[in-house]
């Protein structure tokens, strides 16, 4: 039986095409994915991301536990309550179990937001590790989450909440503040300014309705995917998985190697891979022509074949873009096999689009 978020009735009421995503009945689009994508690039859009997993950790051992569990180092958050950190959670082989955001809530309290598709792996692991370490851990399934994204996101929050929104609006990217009963992080998955609002489940519907009344366009998973791809952001299960390390997924920057004595899960394997050399790398491609270059398509290079990990029509560029895993020493031409022909592709450094502007 698929699960529904507290916003299911809002989606159906707005005419969403509902699909199963990782066991959740989620909106794919509300009529036009392209229009939703455009709304986020030029105005403001809303996403129901309540299927993601919120887990709160607290207690004297919480910081040490997270320093041992996460590849990035929550010590970077010390003295900075409200600050957020992006990190991978690895297995002992250095493979990516999940990528997540951890917020420091002050004192000894942390909030983790992890992916829906990996909920059944990540949650039990965090809860189990916390129990063994004597850390309080709470699965916050009583909460819902709404992402408000786009150049007009801040204006909409100000319009709805007035002075109450001041702390949230003062946040820089990757900071969070309380907005009444709402936990508001200036984070997102679109390459635009925006907020992710974590609210008690019973307040999600009324908040969603107020946001749409203020002009925010409901957006489905389709637009969420094309926006994150344009923003050059990885999607777990596509750019990385348990057999892929952060070093092979362009996420080396999220691994905190210093201090050397921090022994996080997967460190030994990553260290060995780093010293031996990484065989694969993740790159961005802008593909010639109009035919979308999709996940799984082969990429021919001078150093052997690679594969597209995510590919789609970019509404902002007006053509196909992709992320691809290719041999690390591939330097020359890149050609994508699209059905019975090959299309030339230009290697670029993602993001493809940021703040409404093409940047490749």
């Amino acid at each position, binding site marked *: 039986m698929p699960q529904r978020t507290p916003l299911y009735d809002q989606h159906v009421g707005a005419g969403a*095409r509902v699909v199963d995503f990782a066991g959740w009945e989620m909106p*794919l*689009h509300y009529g*036009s*994915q*392209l229009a939703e994508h455009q709304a986020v690039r030029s105005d403001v859009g809303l996403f129901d991301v309540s299927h993601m997993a919120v887990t709160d950790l607290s207690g004297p051992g919480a910081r040490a536990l997270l320093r041992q569990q996460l590849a990035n180092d929550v010590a970077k958050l010390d003295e900075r309550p409200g600050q957020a950190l992006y990190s991978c959670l690895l297995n002992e082989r250095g493979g990516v179990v999940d990528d997540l955001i951890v917020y420091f809530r002050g004192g000894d309290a942390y909030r983790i937001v992890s992916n829906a598709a990996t909920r059944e792996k990540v949650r039990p692991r965090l809860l189990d590790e916390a129990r063994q370490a004597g850390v309080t851990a709470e699965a916050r399934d009583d909460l819902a989450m709404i992402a408000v994204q786009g150049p007009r996101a801040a204006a909409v929050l100000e319009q709805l909440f007035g002075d109450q929104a001041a702390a949230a609006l003062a946040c820089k990217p990757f900071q969070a503040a309380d907005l009444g009963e709402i936990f508001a992080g200036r984070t997102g998955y679109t390459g635009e300014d925006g907020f992710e609002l974590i609210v008690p489940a019973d307040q999600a519907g009324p908040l969603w309705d107020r946001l749409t009344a203020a002009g925010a366009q409901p957006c489905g998973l*389709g637009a969420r995917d*094309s926006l994150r791809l344009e923003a050059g952001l990885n999607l777990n299960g596509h750019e990385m998985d348990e057999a892929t390390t952060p070093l092979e997924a362009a996420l080396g920057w999220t691994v905190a190697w210093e201090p050397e004595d921090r022994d996080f899960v997967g460190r030994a394997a990553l260290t060995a891979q780093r010293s031996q050399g990484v065989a694969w790398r993740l790159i961005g491609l802008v593909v010639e022509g*109009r*035919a*979308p270059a*999709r996940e799984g398509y082969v990429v021919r290079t001078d150093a052997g074949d690679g594969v597209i990990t995510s590919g*789609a*029509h970019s509404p902002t560029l007006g053509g196909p873009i992709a992320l691809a895993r290719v041999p690390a020493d591939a330097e020359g031409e890149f050609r994508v096999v699209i*059905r019975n022909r090959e299309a030339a592709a230009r290697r670029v450094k993602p993001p493809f689009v940021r703040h409404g502007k093409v940047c490749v």
Partner: protein
Amino acid sequence: MSQVPEDLKYTRNHEWVRVEADGSVTVGITEHAQESLGDLVFVEPPEVGTQLQAEEACAVVESVKAASDVYAPISGEVTQGNEALADNPETVNTDPYGDGWIMRIQPADTSEIDGLLDAAAYQALVADEG
């Protein structure tokens, strides 16, 4: 319920077929098909002169979601592809039975047209698929 014009023939693969005055047929995908696919971003009609066998995959339509084949409703020779779709694939979404046509075929055997679904039968098929 999506629109199913009475004067067209249909296939189980959600193509429509219109017989023109000169005996050629125009082919596109149905309203139901474009709705299911979502926003189209790429259409590749077959090349003029291609000899088609009925039910052969002969064109590609790609939406934001996925690539789908379009199948030849009947056997025959391709006489025209809709070149305008190269720059405006979304026309298939906005006008599937009009400017969003995909190809014209000179039928090899007009009796194949009689074997296609009529509007009522196609409507029933779509209703069955839920």
